[in-house]
């Protein structure tokens, strides 16, 4: 009697393969991190290794043994140092140090988007209040002044005229962080009372949401309402290109709608998705974890 040898089902293969050691870098456990921990712990092919930044003492020669690191650290500077150390030892991180560095710096992001030929708002960069004032006059009012490494709509200013510019730039020059000595000015884009957040994972735009507010700022952190945004071929192609421009694995792309089409104004590496989860109809935590397993196995 001849035995037949059919291949085992994929679910069985998953359990007999070596488990992926997934390092989850974090400080605060917010809704997103909790969902990611839950998604990872549901899987039998993952061993979750929590990496709370506040407890870490990193040694180049004795880093925690993991196959992949998912960056969920809320502090950009802490994340960069940890990602850099793992990257240097050959451990794959999501996203990589280079991508996190670009995504965390608006000047670098704008440069990459522009270099890739993607639609993105006009910007100027200056290093003194006087030069920044000239840049504002050049772009025309209203103009938007942003911290080069800011997030959540923090310390953003929509400057309506020269008088306001002089005042705001003087105040900014007296802020403590050296980063406030870099003046990032962006043209004010006329748009509907909403922008778009799209989620790109593993080279695919998996979901998108509108973020709507009565205010010119439409950050979810500031209370914008979210609703599902269809991922059209145009949106998909642009978001994938934006992700490639910054070398991203898994990023959130923020876009505005203009009369001429979409314009990309930001990419976010440690993507926040709590506000969008209910409306987009995609299991983003599962997708992120699956992507981590994929890159760990490929590495």
């Amino acid at each position, binding site marked *: 009697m001849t035995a037949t040898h059919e291949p085992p089902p994929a679910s069985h293969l998953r359990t007999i393969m070596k488990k992926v050691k997934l390092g989850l870098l974090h400080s*605060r456990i917010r809704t997103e991190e909790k969902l990611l921990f839950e998604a990872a712990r549901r899987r039998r092919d993952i061993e979750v290794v929590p990496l709370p930044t506040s407890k870490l003492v990193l040694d180049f020669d004795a880093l925690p043994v993991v196959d992949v690191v998912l960056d969920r650290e809320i502090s950009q500077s802490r994340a960069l140092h940890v990602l850099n150390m793992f990257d240097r030892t050959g451990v794959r991180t999501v996203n990589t140090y280079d991508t996190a560095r670009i995504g965390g710096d608006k000047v670098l992001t704008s440069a990459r988007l522009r270099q890739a030929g993607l639609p993105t708002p006009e910007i100027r960069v200056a290093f003194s209040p006087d030069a920044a004032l000239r840049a504002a006059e050049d772009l025309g009012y209203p103009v938007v002044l942003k911290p080069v490494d800011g997030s959540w709509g923090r310390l953003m200013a929509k400057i309506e005229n020269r008088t306001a510019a002089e005042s705001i730039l003087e105040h900014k020059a007296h802020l403590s962080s050296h980063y406030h000595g870099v003046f990032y000015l962006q043209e004010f884009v006329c748009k509907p009372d909403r922008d778009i957040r799209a989620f790109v994972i593993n080279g695919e735009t998996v979901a998108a949401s509108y973020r709507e507010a009565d205010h010119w700022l439409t950050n979810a952190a500031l209370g914008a309402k979210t609703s599902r945004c269809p991922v059209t071929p145009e949106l998909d192609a642009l978001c994938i290109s934006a992700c490639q421009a910054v070398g991203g694995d898994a990023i959130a792309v923020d876009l505005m709608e203009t009369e001429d089409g979409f314009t990309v104004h930001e990419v976010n590496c440690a993507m926040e998705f709590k506000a969008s989860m209910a409306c987009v109809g995609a299991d983003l935590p599962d997708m992120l974890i699956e992507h981590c397993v994929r890159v760990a196995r490929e590495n």
Partner: protein
Amino acid sequence: MPTCPECGGTLELGADLMAHEIVDCPACGTELEVTSVDPVAVALAPEEEEDWGE
């Protein structure tokens, strides 16, 4: 049951609590961080820093 270090109100926390999890005090709304799960302990969550975000 732990109490809120800000207002003294009693916190009713779920069984799936994690260390470093952020919870809001239902009485005063203060943001708290879980510093230990066994036994459960909380402290005022750190203030937002300039490089926090996505």
